[in-house]
């Protein structure tokens, strides 16, 4: 096993992991604040990916240019989804929330199937199959750009939450629901806002992911599961945790695939999830409950 091989694989793992991390970031924000188990998360990203292919096919827009319109559209979509459908379920038992979003997910996946058919769709841009050569390491161009987009978006979100007034209000809601109400914050609107922001992450992640992966309707559920694994490993409610979790999963899967059997690499992620749940349920960077 040469160093080059391991290095190449690890680099690819890190870059892919960052994009996964962005997707998980959206989930972390939603789960951390609104406390809703969004089991339609992966499906939402699938919709974003399809949106990017449609924009590319009709307007020739490079996926990175699609980010802005997609983000806007998804913000509205997330806002409305939360305010309209999900809000009454916040106080309901977990299994009800879960089933609600499973039903939403089923509708999403199959509506996509109806509209787009079962065959895979992809984007073909020029730089997609090119790579940068840094010494003996080949860095996939598309992957690098996607990872950069993920990091920038995460950074923007992070500064929003840390420095803006609304961001602070949302964090207050998450930390202390009752206190927030007492202080007079419009919790319902803040929840919807948060869901909207989480959806923006999903939109950006989708636009980035569509360069790396062909989209088919049943892609959603696998990503939902992956997002949950990352969020739990990285730490609920911690934004750097989501990115760290993503990178960790990306790299560990890559290494597991290299050293053991590639077909068993998901086993590794689930094993890691079980360990974290047992030994450190708040995740690596999460706050102690």
């Amino acid at each position, binding site marked *: 096993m040469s160093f080059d091989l391991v290095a190449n694989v690890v680099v690819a793992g890190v870059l892919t992991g960052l994009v996964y991390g962005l997707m998980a970031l959206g989930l972390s924000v939603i789960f951390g604040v609104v406390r809703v*188990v969004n089991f339609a998360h992966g499906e939402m990203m699938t919709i974003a990916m399809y949106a990017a292919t449609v924009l590319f096919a009709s307007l020739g827009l490079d996926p990175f240019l699609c980010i802005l319109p997609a983000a806007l559209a998804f913000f509205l979509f997330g806002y409305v989804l939360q305010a309209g*459908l999900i809000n009454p379920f916040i106080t*309901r038992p*977990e*299994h*009800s929330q*879960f*089933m*609600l979003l*499973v*039903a*939403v*997910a*089923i*509708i999403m*996946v*199959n*509506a*996509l*199937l*109806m509209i787009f*058919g*079962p065959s895979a769709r992809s984007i073909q841009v020029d730089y997609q199959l090119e790579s940068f050569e840094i010494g003996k390491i080949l860095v996939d161009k598309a992957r690098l750009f996607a990872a950069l987009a993920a990091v920038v978006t995460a950074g923007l979100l992070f500064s929003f939450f840390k420095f803006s007034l609304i961001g602070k209000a949302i964090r207050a809601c998450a930390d202390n629901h009752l206190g927030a109400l007492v202080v007079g914050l419009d919790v319902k609107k803040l929840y919807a806002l948060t869901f909207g922001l989480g959806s923006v992450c999903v939109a950006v992640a989708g636009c980035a992911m569509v360069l790396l992966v062909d989209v088919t*309707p049943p892609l959603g*559920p696998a990503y939902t*599961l992956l997002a*949950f*694994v990352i969020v*739990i490993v990285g730490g609920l409610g911690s934004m750097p945790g989501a990115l760290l979790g993503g990178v960790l999963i990306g790299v560990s899967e890559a290494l597991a695939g290299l050293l053991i*059997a590639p*077909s*068993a690499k*998901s*086993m590794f992620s*689930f*094993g890691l*999830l*079980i360990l974290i*749940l*047992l030994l450190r*349920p708040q995740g690596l960077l999460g706050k102690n409950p």
Partner: protein
Amino acid sequence: MAGNYALSVVTLILYFAYTGQAWNVMMGFAGQLSLGHSLYVGVGAYAAGGLFFHYGIGPWAGLPLAILFCVALGLIIGFLAFRFGISGVYFALLTIAFAEFTRIGFDHLDWLGGPGGMFLKVAQRDTWDILNFRGPPLMYYYAMLFLCGAALALCSWLLKSKAGYYWQAIRENEEAAQALGINTFRWKMLAVAISSAMTAVSGVFFAFYYNNLFPEQIFHISRSIEIILGPIIGGIGTLFGPILGAAVLTLLSDGITDGLAALGWEIPGIKQVFYGVVLLAVIMFLPNGIWPPIARKLKL
């Protein structure tokens, strides 16, 4: 011949009613959301199936082995979860992780067929051979009918027993229950054990009814979701909820297929969209399931 299709549909309904009832013990009675119940069906099926495939030992010996494995697994998961204080959505994710881990694991277990699957030989399909659990579809129907009835009786008895009261207390407010001196750990473990044992029987039935086992199918998360749809739609924690839910869902699925065919709307995916919309409607407007309002109407 005409009745055979209807028979297979009813057998399927009863299968989901029974398995849903088994899951209901863990969720509805003890309040623990398991989203990885396909684990027990699969392990039960492979335990009995493997015994038959490799050693020719029939299902009646496979049954206790299947139950043993499933209860052991359930207790391990329960122990890990409850001792470490994992509950709610974290517990659900833990169960998913175990099921997925097992699915991929079995995909690499060539001794049990691996991804190529395990095919059980069927000796005959004409006469009722209860010892080897081989016979016409009618036999399987009666077997499932019996299991459903037994599950109903068992759950009814459990609900009225001490266990039932403790479970209710734990479900409503675990901390208060603990404060009252109830050993919540022990009673939750009991629920998990009973639930996994009952589901193991489902697995054994599955193995000898369908006669081919593939890890990708039997451990898949969509199976786990299928199992819980019935109880949730019918009514969690109720006795008749799982049965009613399973019946409604299966008939709904068939009905939608027929309706769409009659309308000529044969677009792939449209059936599941309808299905999802109905699910959504039930969840939104009948959050406790279909059975409670009906029970109220019937003054039960």
